[in-house]
């Protein structure tokens, strides 16, 4: 069970994000041709993807839990984490497009990773379409959970394997290990890793607020139902 209300991780999240925003703009970065100062976008673009994958992972985990013991609460958690992951994915695409506009010349370059990410988002949009098309609560939760797990496993090859097999303008393609081409020197690591952790915590925070909201709504509905009965 998530401890949703404790304060320490929220303050940690705020501190890390303030640090990464300030540090991201002020600290020294390596000079690379073409990329130049836009390399600072790394601090905001890449954590979005880390955050998205983490959110979808949690969502899948709770989908499995739902299928195992059929508690409606697990379904709520699963949905809200998928929601938050979707927001992160959209932000990741938008920040990536802004960055690409300055370094590659066009916002959409047909890069395999870009396409893979767009497909991954389509998968999760399809998840919400499926949930929307079912009216029975229990059935919606069950089929949604099944599709969620299936989609997650179908998505892994898309964003982790296929882009690495074809040539891409992202680092980590054509068999290169992920970050070596970035010259992610120690100075950048100092901002990058806190930013990743900070954004993941931020995602959990957003999701937890929405989960609590949904629980309250459920309780209000239940009480109204009992009164009327």
């Amino acid at each position, binding site marked *: 069970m998530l401890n949703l209300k404790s304060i320490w991780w929220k303050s940690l999240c705020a501190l890390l994000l303030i640090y990464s925003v300030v540090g991201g703009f002020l600290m020294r970065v390596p000079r690379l041709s073409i990329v130049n100062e836009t390399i600072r976008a790394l601090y905001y673009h890449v954590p979005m993807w880390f955050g998205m994958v983490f959110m979808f992972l949690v969502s899948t985990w709770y989908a499995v839990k739902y299928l195992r013991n059929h508690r409606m609460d697990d379904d709520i958690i699963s949905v809200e984490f998928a929601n938050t992951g979707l927001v992160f994915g959209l932000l990741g695409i938008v920040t990536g497009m802004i960055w690409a506009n300055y370094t590659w010349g066009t916002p959409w370059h047909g890069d395999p990773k870009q396409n893979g990410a767009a497909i991954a988002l389509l998968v999760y949009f399809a998840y919400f379409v499926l949930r929307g098309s079912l009216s029975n609560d229990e059935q919606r939760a069950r*089929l949604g959970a099944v599709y969620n797990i299936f989609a997650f*496993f*179908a998505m892994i*090859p898309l964003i982790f394997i296929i882009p690495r097999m074809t040539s891409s303008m992202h680092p980590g393609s054509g068999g290169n290990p992920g970050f070596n081409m970035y010259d992610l020197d120690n100075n950048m690591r100092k901002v990058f890793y806190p930013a990743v952790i900070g954004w993941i915590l931020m995602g959990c925070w957003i999701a937890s607020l929405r989960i609590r909201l949904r629980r309250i709504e459920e309780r209000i509905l239940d009480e109204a139902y009992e009164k009327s009965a």
Partner: protein
Amino acid sequence: MKELLFLQLKLEIRNQSILTSLFLYLVCLVFIIYLTIGNQPTSQSPAIWSALFWMTLLFTTVNTIAKSFIPYKPDSGPYMYSIVSAEQIILAKIFYGFVLNTLIGCIGFILFSTLLKNPIEDLWLFLGTLLLASYGFSASLTLLSGIASKANNNSVVMAVLSFPVIIGILLMVIKITRHASDGLEIAASYNELITIAAINILVTAVSYLLFPYIWRS
């Protein structure tokens, strides 16, 4: 298990309307492609050919597999539920879809090579790809068709659910087809072949684990 497979085959052969409508669908698609771009020089390039070929197959198989959970008799569901386990059903349906997809693929290939042209140089590699892709389509679409059938057999839901999931296989397959038509040696496509095989295994395993939860209701 075997009986289940044969039962499905027998029902399908007896119920000819589905099979014939399927082949008519395929023929119509290929003929439309032929009429619209058949005599343009661009359609002769292997890239366009393989894209069109696999798109045709994709649409036909989605339509096929979407029907795999429409019961033949309205009351046969509970009866099936009592005599076989969900795991057996999903495996039988996947295998049945595989056979059907391979058939569609072969007929589609013959139609494409007669109406348009046949750019494939390495036929064995292409046939191997066809087999792998048929299995991959079948394995990933059968579970989704099960989900869609619970959502009132809404064909839009089926399309929305399946297309994003299938794109990974489709991209790999189109790449191998281009290798096969450029006459590259097989070693050039090992990576893609292994990836498709791995996706197939993954998808089958996930379907096998998840299908009982759909079937239960």
